[in-house]
C-alpha cells in the first residue's frame, strides 16, 4: 500500500518537480556559476574571473543607483498599498448591499496585465500633451500641460509609476484583508460593545488590527517581494527603442539590459542577479523574524 502511494505521489508530483528543477534550479545554479566567469555572449565561458563581476557590479554607479531607486519605491509603495487595500477591505466589509459587486469592482484591475495598464497610463492618462486626460483636467484650472514621464524636477514620473501599481494591486490585497476580516469572530465585537467600546478607531486598534496580524504579515512580505521584483510597469512606462533613462531604473531593468541587451554580459548580469537575490532574501528573512512570522501569539 505504501509503495503504491509512493508511486502515485511521484506520478503526480514528479513532472512538476522535474519542471521546477529543469526550468528554475538548473538555470539558477548555472547563473551563479556564470557570475564567476567572463561570460560575454556565451553561456559556456572558460575565463574564470573570481569575484571580479561582483566587485564591478558593486562599484557600478548605475547598479547602486538602481538599488536606491527601488528602495525609494519600496519605502513608498509598501505602506501606501497596505493602507489603501486595508481601507478598501474595511469599507467593502461594512457594505450591507451589493458587497460582491464592490468586491469584484475593486478586484478587477488585478486581472489586468501590467503591460496593458502601463501603456494606458503612458499614452492616454499621463501623456504630456494638452489632450492627455490628466492634462485636460489641469487645463480646466488654467495649468500648462505637464510632461509627466519626462520631468525629473519635480519627479512627476513617480506619480505615474505609483498610481498604476496601486490601481493594479490594491484590489488583490484587499481580497486578502477581506478574507482575514471575515474570519474575525463577531463575538469579539459584541463583547467590546458590551464593555463600552465605541465602533471606530478604538475597535479597529484593539480588535481588528490584532486579529489581522497574520494576514498583515503575509501582505507585507508579498508587497516587499513584489516591489523588489518591479519590472513591467517601469520598463513599459519609461523605456524606448534607444534605451532607458537613468532615473527610476530598478535593478531588474538594469540587469535585463546588462545580460539580455546587446551587451550580453551574462557574467556581470548574473553577479547582479545573485546580489539582488541575496538582498531580497536577507530583507525577507529579517522582516519575517521582526514580524514574528510563523510564531504563535503565546510565544
Amino acid at each position: 500500500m505504501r509503495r503504491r502511494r509512493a508511486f502515485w505521489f511521484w506520478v503526480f508530483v514528479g513532472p512538476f518537480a522535474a519542471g521546477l528543477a529543469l526550468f528554475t534550479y538548473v538555470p539558477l545554479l548555472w547563473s551563479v556559476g556564470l557570475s564567476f566567469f567572463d561570460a560575454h555572449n556565451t553561456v559556456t565561458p572558460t575565463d574564470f574571473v573570481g569575484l571580479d563581476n561582483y566587485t564591478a557590479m558593486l562599484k557600478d554607479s548605475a547598479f547602486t543607483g538602481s538599488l536606491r531607486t527601488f528602495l525609494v519605491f519600496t519605502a513608498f509603495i509598501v505602506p501606501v498599498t497596505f493602507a489603501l487595500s486595508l481601507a478598501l477591505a474595511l469599507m467593502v466589509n461594512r457594505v450591507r448591499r451589493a458587497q460582491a459587486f464592490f468586491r469584484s469592482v475593486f478586484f478587477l484591475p488585478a486581472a489586468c496585465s501590467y503591460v496593458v495598464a502601463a501603456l494606458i497610463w503612458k499614452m492616454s492618462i499621463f501623456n504630456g500633451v494638452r489632450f492627455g486626460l490628466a492634462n485636460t483636467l489641469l487645463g480646466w484650472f488654467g495649468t500648462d500641460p505637464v510632461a509627466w514621464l519626462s520631468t525629473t524636477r519635480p519627479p512627476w514620473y513617480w506619480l505615474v509609476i505609483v498610481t498604476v501599481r496601486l490601481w493594479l494591486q490594491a484590489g488583490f490585497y484587499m481580497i486578502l484583508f477581506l478574507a482575514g476580516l471575515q474570519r474575525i469572530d463577531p463575538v469579539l465585537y459584541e463583547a467590546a460593545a458590551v464593555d463600552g467600546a465605541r465602533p471606530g478607531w478604538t475597535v479597529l486598534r484593539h480588535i481588528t488590527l490584532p486579529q489581522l496580524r497574520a494576514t498583515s504579515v503575509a501582505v507585507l512580505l508579498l508587497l516587499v517581494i513584489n516591489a523588489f521584483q518591479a519590472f513591467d510597469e517601469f520598463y513599459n512606462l519609461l523605456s524606448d527603442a534607444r534605451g532607458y533613462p537613468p532615473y527610476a531604473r530598478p535593478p531588474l531593468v538594469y540587469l535585463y539590459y546588462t545580460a539580455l541587451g546587446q551587451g550580453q554580459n551574462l557574467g556581470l548580469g548574473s553577479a547582479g542577479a545573485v546580489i539582488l537575490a541575496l538582498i531580497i532574501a536577507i530583507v525577507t528573512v529579517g522582516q519575517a523574524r521582526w514580524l514574528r512570522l510563523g510564531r504563535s501569539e503565546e510565544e
Partner: protein
Amino acid sequence: MTISRRTLLGAGAGIGVGVLGGCGSNTGRGGGGSGGVRLAQWYHQYGEAGTEQAVKRYAGAYTKARVTVQWRPGNYDQQTAAALLTDSGPDVFEVNGPSLDQIQGKQVEDLTALLDGVKDDFNPAVLAPKTYQGKVYGIPQTIDMQMLYYRKSMLRDAGVRPPRTLDELVDAAQKLSDSKVKGLFLGNDGGAGVLGGTPLYAAGLQLVTEDGKVGFDDPAAARALGKLRELYAGKALLLGAPTDWSDPSAFLQGLTAMQWSGLWALPQVQKELGDDFGVLPFPGDGSHGKPTVPVGAYGAAVSARSKEREAAKAYVRWLWVERTDYQEDFALGYGFHIPARISLAKKAAKLRTGAAADAVRFATDHGYAQPLLWTPASQTAYQDALSRIIKDGANPESELRGVVRKVTAELDRVKHTS
C-alpha cells in the same frame, strides 16, 4: 462513456509528450520539404506594409536552398543575441550590427569574400562599423538616417530662418514655442536617447577616434551638450507626446514646429504637408563644428553555429550582393531607405528630387555611423550622463569626465579581448 483514471492518465501523458515535442520544434530552419539544403533567415519586424511579403518572395526565388523566412516582432536584438547562443538559431539573420562582442565572441561568420570586386560600391560610412580588423561581418542591406524636419510656414510666421548652427537651433526653438506648440521634438526624453553622439560630431568631435581612443575628451563636447540643456530648460522641447521621435505624428499634428526623425518618415510627411516642410542636418556647433546626420544600416549576417554556413554565405551573396533589383525594391518599394550600394542610390528615381535628394546629400556629405568600438556599456554611460545633463541640469564637464573614464575602460577591455 466513462473514462477510467488509467485512460485519463494515458491521454494526459500523450498530450504532454505532444506538447513537449512541439516545444522548441519550430527552429525556423524550414521543414516538411524533402532533400536539399534548408536555411532559416530572420528579419526584425518592419512597419512598412509589403516588406514581409517581399522578403519571402526573394527567398522563394532562390533555387540553391530552401529558405524559410521568419518575421520576428518584439525585441529583435535580444532575440537574435539569445538565439546565437544556441544551435537552434537562424542561419542567416538581419542584424543592427553585429556588435563587437558578437564578432569577438566568434558568433558571426567572416563575410569578407562575399564583397570581392564590389566592396567599393558599398557606402563606406555604413560598411565601417561592420568591419573589424579588416574583415567584414555584415553585408549592409539599406541605409537609414535621421535628420531635422521643419515646417516652413511656422518658421516663416515666426520670422525664423532654418537653423544653420546649434545656437540658431536653440534660438529658433524658443521663438517657435508657445502654450500650444513647441519649437522642437527630440523624443520624449528630451533627446538623450535618439541624439546619441550627434551633438559631439556636430561640435567636430567623435565618439571613438580612428586609433581607438575616446574622441570627445574636449571642452567643445561639454559646450555642445550644455546647449541641449538650454533647449530643455527654456521649455522649447515637446515632451510626453503620444508617439516618439521615430513617428512623425507630433510634427504632422502641429504639436511641434521642428522634429528630429528618420528618413523613413519622409513619404508620410510629404503626403500630409506637401511642400510645407524642409529637412536639415543637425547643425554644427563652434568653429570646428559641422552639420551632422547619423546613418546606420541593418546588415545580413551568418551565424557561426549554423550547420550550413557555406550555403548561408552563398545565399547572402546572391541576395545582398548580386540581386541589385531586389536590393532596390527592398529599399524603396515599401518604406523609404537609401540602398547600401552607391550605384543603386545614385540611379534611384525616388531619391533624385526634393527633400529626398537633400537627405541623400546629407548622408553622403555629413553622415557618421556609430563606431564598432562604441560598446553598449559605453553607450549606457554616455546616455545616462546626457539624460542627467538635459533633464537635471547636471554639470556637463563633470558628467563627461565620468563617461570618459568608463569609455576608456571599455576600450581597454575590447582591445584586451581582441
